[in-house]
């Protein structure tokens, strides 16, 4: 095909593009995979049984705020990196600051408790499954985030993959927090955070293969 033919073809199939097209693609891609991930949590793990009383506790809302901020920052990162020349610096800074605050809070909590309880606060009763569950819940979201980016124009694929992974992990941790009844700050600071960073790593590694265009 000659370049002239190509131009004729492309011109022929030109349609107006909405200024919000990228926004909607992010909403649709992550929205649908959020539904899948939530369904997975609901049918496979189940909601936490003490949901009603939990919403009255400070810890529920701390966990909620922590994962929500990371999820929003991650989603923003996916949107930003979808543009050529896009940068996720702002999102990364927000995420890093949020994690640092959480770690500081957790350490303060540890400092205020007698040392013999430290171990229990770190391991909770679900240490064996927490991070793994978040990573599993993040998989549909990772697929969704990859789908979003594959139709757009990220030019730095490893960074784009990392953004997709962090967003997927963060949203998954938000979903998981409706199942998990752990309430110790140090537990959240370590195992939730790990559950977000691992998908980020998976995304970064997969990015340059999956996201090529």
């Amino acid at each position, binding site marked *: 095909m000659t370049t002239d033919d*190509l131009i004729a073809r*492309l*011109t022929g199939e*030109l349609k107006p593009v909405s200024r919000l097209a*990228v926004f909607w693609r992010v909403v649709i891609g992550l929205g649908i995979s959020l539904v899948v991930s939530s369904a997975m949590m609901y049918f496979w793990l189940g909601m936490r049984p003490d949901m009603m009383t939990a919403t009255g506790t400070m810890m529920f809302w701390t966990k909620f705020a922590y994962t929500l901020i990371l999820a929003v920052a991650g989603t923003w990162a996916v949107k930003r990196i979808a*543009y*050529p020349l896009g940068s996720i610096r702002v999102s990364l800074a927000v995420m890093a600051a949020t994690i640092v605050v959480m770690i500081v809070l957790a350490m303060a909590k540890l400092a205020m408790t007698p040392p013999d309880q430290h171990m229990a606060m770190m391991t909770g009763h679900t240490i064996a499954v927490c991070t793994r569950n978040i990573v599993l819940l993040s998989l549909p979201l990772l697929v969704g985030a990859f789908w979003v980016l594959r139709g*757009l*124009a990220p030019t730095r694929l490893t960074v784009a993959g990392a953004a997709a992974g962090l967003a997927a992990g963060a949203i998954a941790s938000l979903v998981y927090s409706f199942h998990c009844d752990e309430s110790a700050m140090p537990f959240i600071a370590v195992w939730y955070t790990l559950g977000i960073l691992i998908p980020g790593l998976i995304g970064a590694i997969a990015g340059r293969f999956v996201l*090529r265009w």
Partner: protein
Amino acid sequence: MNPVETRLKELMLASLDGDARSYGILLNDLARHLRFYFLRRLSDAHKGDADDLVQETLMSLHTRRATYETDRPFTAWLHAIARYKLIDHFRRNRIRVTVPLDDAEDLFAVDQSDAAADRMDVERLLQSVPEKSRDLIYRTKIEGQSIAEVAQSTGLSEASVKVGIHRGIKAIAAKLKGRADDDR
């Protein structure tokens, strides 16, 4: 602001609203810019890939045009895509790049559309000249070698180099005259 940027951006904004005429003009313009851009960055062995890269870039521009943010420079956006395609091409073909990639901004830094068009005109004209003369003209007039250098490297006498060039230029002149007559 850079006049090229202003012009291309206007065309792009109209294209995003669905104006096919502007889009056609834009793509034709960009095809020329891009060809020149890729040719300059591909080694001689890979120059043949330039047209493929131009087409791939135009196709990506088309399918991903929603990622153009209208409050940002159009040329920077297009350059990012072209550069991505070039790097992807190098990776796919395992080409080690020895030329700096990042004299980047000059995809549009100067208005090269005329320069590129001129270059194509020159090349087209040269095609119409017998091969021997074409080579001589190319070496002396475009690469800037001296008559003596060319004589030495081709094994011709200086006199026949001069004659060859003269014949070629006459052929080009005749061709140009013919074209001017056509235009009338």
